[in-house]
C-alpha cells in the first residue's frame, strides 16, 4: 500500500536529471532490476518510478526487463507491459545515451520546427524516430512540452533547450558527441528563479502581466495561519462565496468539490495537485512552479485543512522533471518554517501522457497504472487515490485559494464576471510580439488581449488549446470566461501567413497520439477524422466530405467516454464554423465523388517484387 512521506530534499532521487534516459550497460542487469524494485519497496504505486529507473540504468525497458520487473513486483507481465507501452517517455527499444525529444506542437511549427528538425537530423546523422547505430543519440518528437512561448524547444535527458536555432543545434549535437553532460550545454540561464541553484535552466518565465491574485505578493505562511484560525467549514464557505472555479478548464466550483470531499467517508483523505498541464499552448503552471511554488504548496495545505487530509501529492508532468529537485527543496524549506507542519506533500512524476491531465486518469497514473480515465460515478471526491476521498485541483486553483483565505471570498468575487470570478492566467503564444503569461480578470476580450500581447495581425485565435475553439476576427470581441470562451489558459495567436488547416491537422494528430484507446469513438473516431481531414486537405474532397466530417465529429463528441474525445473534434468543428471558406476552397464543388485510389501506389510492392516499374502515367 501507500508508502508515505517523501524524504525531503532527497537528492539521491535525482536520477531523472542528467541521466534521464542514459545508457549505462551494467553487468548483471537482472540484479540491478531487483535492486531498483527493492529500492522502491516493491510498491505498486511506484511502478512508474521503477520503470523510469530501469530505463535510466539500462537505456530502455526491454522485453526481458518487463518480465523481470513483473516477477519482482508480483505482477503479470502484461500488466507491466501495459504501463511501459502507455507512456511516451518509456521505450522498449534503446533511445540513446542522449535522447532528444523535440516538441512538435502547432506553435513549434510556426516558430521553425521544420528547420530545427532538419538541423538535428543533419548534425546527428539519423532521422527522427531513430537512434544512431552506436547508440549515442536518439531523435524523437513529443507533444507540447509547455514551452510555447520559447519555441522551438526540446528536452534532452530531462534538460530543456529553448528558442532553438540551427546554430544552437550544432553546438548541442557537438557537445553530445563529445560526451558532455547536457546540463553543461546550457549556456545562459533564463529569468527569475530559473537561475536558482537547483534549476539552472535556460527557460524564461516571460511574465508579461501580473494581476491581483496569483502574481501579487503575500507573506508565505500567512494564509495557512489564517486558515487555522477558522474552521474547515468556514474555509470551504469562503471558497463558495468567492465563486472560485477549477482553473484546469472544466470550471467545477472549488468550494463544492472540497465540501463533497470533506463529507465523503474514508479512513483518510487526499489532496492532489494536477501539475500535468498538457493542453498544447499552456505553460502557466510551469511559471507558477518556478516562481511561486511556496504559494501552491500553501494552497494545498489549506485544501488539506479544509477537506481533512494530511497527505498531498503533486503530480508533475515528466516534461517539468527539471523542477523536481528544486520543488523538493522548497517543500523541505516550508516544512522547516512550519508552513507544512501537519501536511505532507510528495511529488510524483508522470511519464508523457496528455490524458493524465484528466483527474481520474491522473489518479490511476499516480497509483502506478496506465493513465486511463475511470468510469464515473464514483467521483474522485468519493473514491480517489487508492480508493480514498480525494480532491484534485489545478496548480492555479490552489494559488487562488491562498488569496481567498487571506482577503476573503467577497473580495475575490468582485473581480471578473458574474459566472467567472477572479483572475485567470493566460499562456499566450504564436504570432505576437510578447508571448508569455498574462494574469487578466475574467471577462477580458480577445481584442484587448491581442492589443496587450501585440498580436494585432491575428486572423484567428485558438482559445483553450486544441480542445477549445478557433475563432476569427468577427469574434475578437468575445470575452474570456467560463460562459463565453472557456480556457484552461492556452491562447494561440494565428497570423495571416499561417495555413489554418495545418494547425487543425496538427491538433488532430495530437489527439490521435494522445487518446488512451479505451473507448471506441475516441480511439477509432479520431483516426478516421484525421484521415478525412487529410483527404480534404489533399484536394480529394467533395461537398459530401464536408457534410460527413461534420457528422462524424458529432458522433465522436457524443459517444466518447471522457473529455478528450468529447472535445477532440473541436478543432475541425470550430474551424468549419468560423473558417468555412477555407474548407470550401479545398473541395471539388462540381464532383460528387473522387476516388482516393492510387493505382501506382497500390501496385508498388508487387512491381518491386517482380522487378518491374509501375506505369503510373498510364493510369
Amino acid at each position, binding site marked *: 500500500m501507500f508508502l508515505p512521506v517523501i524524504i525531503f530534499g532527497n537528492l539521491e532521487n535525482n536520477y531523472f536529471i542528467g541521466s534521464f534516459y542514459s545508457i549505462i550497460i551494467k553487468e548483471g542487469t537482472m540484479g540491478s532490476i531487483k535492486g531498483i524494485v527493492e529500492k522502491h519497496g516493491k510498491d505498486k504505486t511506484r511502478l512508474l518510478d521503477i520503470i523510469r529507473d530501469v530505463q535510466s540504468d539500462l537505456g530502455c525497458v526491454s522485453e526481458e526487463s518487463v518480465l523481470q520487473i513483473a516477477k519482482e513486483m508480483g505482477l503479470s507481465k*502484461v500488466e507491466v*507491459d501495459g504501463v511501459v*507501452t502507455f507512456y511516451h517517455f518509456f521505450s522498449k527499444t534503446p533511445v540513446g545515451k542522449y535522447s532528444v525529444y523535440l516538441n512538435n506542437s502547432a506553435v513549434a511549427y510556426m516558430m521553425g520546427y521544420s528547420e530545427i528538425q532538419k538541423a538535428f537530423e543533419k548534425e546527428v546523422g539519423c532521422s527522427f524516430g531513430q537512434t544512431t547505430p552506436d547508440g549515442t543519440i536518439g531523435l524523437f518528437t513529443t507533444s507540447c512540452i509547455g514551452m510555447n512561448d520559447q519555441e522551438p524547444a526540446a528536452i534532452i535527458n530531462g534538460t530543456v533547450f529553448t528558442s532553438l536555432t540551427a546554430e544552437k543545434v550544432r553546438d548541442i549535437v557537438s557537445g553530445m558527441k563529445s560526451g558532455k553532460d547536457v546540463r553543461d550545454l546550457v549556456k545562459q540561464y533564463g529569468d527569475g528563479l530559473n537561475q536558482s541553484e537547483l534549476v539552472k535552466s535556460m527557460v524564461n518565465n516571460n511574465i508579461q502581466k501580473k494581476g491581483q491574485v496569483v502574481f501579487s505578493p503575500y507573506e508565505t505562511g500567512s494564509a495557512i495561519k489564517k486558515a487555522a484560525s477558522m474552521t474547515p467549514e468556514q474555509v470551504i464557505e469562503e471558497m463558495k462565496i468567492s465563486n472560485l472555479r477549477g482553473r484546469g478548464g472544466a470550471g467545477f466550483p472549488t468550494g463544492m468539490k472540497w465540501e463533497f470531499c470533506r463529507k465523503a467517508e474514508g479512513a483518510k483523505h487526499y489532496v492532489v495537485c494536477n501539475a500535468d498541464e498538457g493542453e498544447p499552448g499552456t505553460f502557466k503552471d510551469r511559471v507558477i512552479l518556478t516562481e511561486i511554488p511556496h504559494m501552491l504548496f500553501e494552497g494545498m495545505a489549506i485544501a488539506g485543512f479544509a477537506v481533512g487530509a494530511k497527505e498531498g501529492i503533486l503530480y508533475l508532468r515528466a516534461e517539468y522533471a527539471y523542477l523536481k529537485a528544486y520543488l523538493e527543496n522548497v517543500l523541505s524549506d516550508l516544512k522547516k518554517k512550519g508552513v507544512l507542519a501537519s501536511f505532507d506533500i510528495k511529488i510524483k512524476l508522470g511519464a508523457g501522457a496528455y490524458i493524465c491531465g484528466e483527474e481520474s486518469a491522473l489518479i490511476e497514473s499516480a497509483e502506478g497504472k496506465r493513465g486511463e480515465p475511470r468510469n464515473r460515478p464514483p467521483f474522485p471526491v468519493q473514491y480517489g487515490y487508492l480508493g480514498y476521498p480525494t480532491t484534485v485541483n489545478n496548480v492555479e486553483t490552489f494559488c487562488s485559494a491562498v488569496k481567498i483565505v487571506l482577503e476573503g471570498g467577497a473580495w475575490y468575487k468582485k473581480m471578473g464576471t458574474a459566472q467567472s470570478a477572479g483572475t485567470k492566467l493566460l499562456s499566450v503564444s504564436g504570432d505576437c510580439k510578447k508571448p508569455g503569461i498574462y494574469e487578466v480578470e475574467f471577462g477580458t476580450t480577445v481584442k484587448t488581449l491581442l492589443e496587450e500581447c501585440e498580436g494585432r495581425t491575428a486572423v484567428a485565435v485558438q482559445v483553450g488549446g486544441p480542445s477549445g475553439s478557433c475563432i476569427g476576427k468577427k469574434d475578437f470581441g468575445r470575452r474570456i470566461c467560463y460562459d463565453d470562451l472557456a480556457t484552461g489558459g492556452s491562447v494561440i495567436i494565428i497570423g495571416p501567413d499561417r495555413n489554418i488547416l495545418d494547425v487543425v491537422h496538427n491538433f488532430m494528430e495530437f489527439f490521435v497520439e494522445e487518446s488512451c484507446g479505451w473507448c471506441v469513438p475516441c*480511439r477509432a473516431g*479520431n483516426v*478516421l477524422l484525421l484521415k478525412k481531414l487529410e483527404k480534404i486537405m489533399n484536394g480529394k474532397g467533395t461537398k459530401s466530405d464536408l457534410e460527413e466530417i461534420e457528422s462524424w465529429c458529432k458522433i465522436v463528441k*457524443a459517444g466518447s467516454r471522457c473529455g478528450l474525445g468529447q472535445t477532440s473534434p473541436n478543432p475541425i468543428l470550430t474551424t468549419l464554423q468560423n473558417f468555412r471558406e477555407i474548407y470550401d476552397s479545398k473541395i471539388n464543388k462540381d464532383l460528387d465523388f473522387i476516388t482516393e485510389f492510387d493505382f501506382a501506389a497500390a501496385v508498388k510492392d508487387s512491381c518491386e517484387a517482380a522487378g518491374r516499374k509501375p506505369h503510373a502515367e498510364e493510369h
Partner: protein
Amino acid sequence: MKEITIKIDGKECKAKSGQTIVEAAKANGIYIPTLCHYDGLKPAGTCRICTVKVGGRNMAACTTPVGEGMVIESNTPELEEIRKAIVEMLFVEGNHMCPTCEKSGNCELQAMGYRYRMMVPRFPYLFPVRPINAKTPKIYIDGNRCIQCLRCARGVLAPDGKKIFGLVKRGGKAMISVDEELAAALTDEQAQKAMDMCPVGAILRKEAGFKVPIGSRKFDSAQIGSDIE
C-alpha cells in the same frame, strides 16, 4: 435493495438501486445494445454502444447506476445512429473477415451489424497490422478480430488474481495482449470460458473448431437482443 422508479423511453419501470441502467432495462424487457458488457463482470464502458441520454447528457448505460426518478432515452434516432456508427467503426478499425471466422453466427459484432442493417461501413477501412498469437497451448488470440471490449481482461484471471489479458500501447495502436506464461497454465474450462466470453472471434480454443455448424448458431435465426425484447 431499495425499489425505485425510472422511465425509459417514456415507459415507467421498476428498478433496484445499485443496478445499472442496462440491468434495469433488461429486467423490464427493454434491450439496450451492448458489446463490452458481460453479466457478472465489472462494467468497463469501452464500446459505448449502450450510450443513452440521461437528463440531456450522454452516458454509458452499462456503467451508470439508476437513480430514483431517472428519465432515460434509449431508442431515439440520434442514439441509434451513434450505435450504428460505433459498429461501423469497429468493423473498419479491425480486420473482420466474417466468412472465414469460426465465430460467425455466434459473433456479437456481426449480429450487431445485422441488427443495425449495416450494408457497408461509412468509414474507410484502416487495415491495421495486428498480430495473431498461437504460442499458448490452449488458445489462439487473433488481434485482427479484437474489439478491445476487455471482457477477457476482466473475466479470465490467473488463480492468484493476476491479469492474463490486458491492454498494451495506447490510442489507435492500443491492443489486447496476453501473458504467455500465465496463459500456458489455462485449464480447458478457462480456455472455453475465454472463448465464450469473447464477443467476436479474437479468442478461439485450439483443436475445437466448428462444433456447431454455421447455420445453426445463436444469431443465425434470431436477432441479437430478441431474447430480451
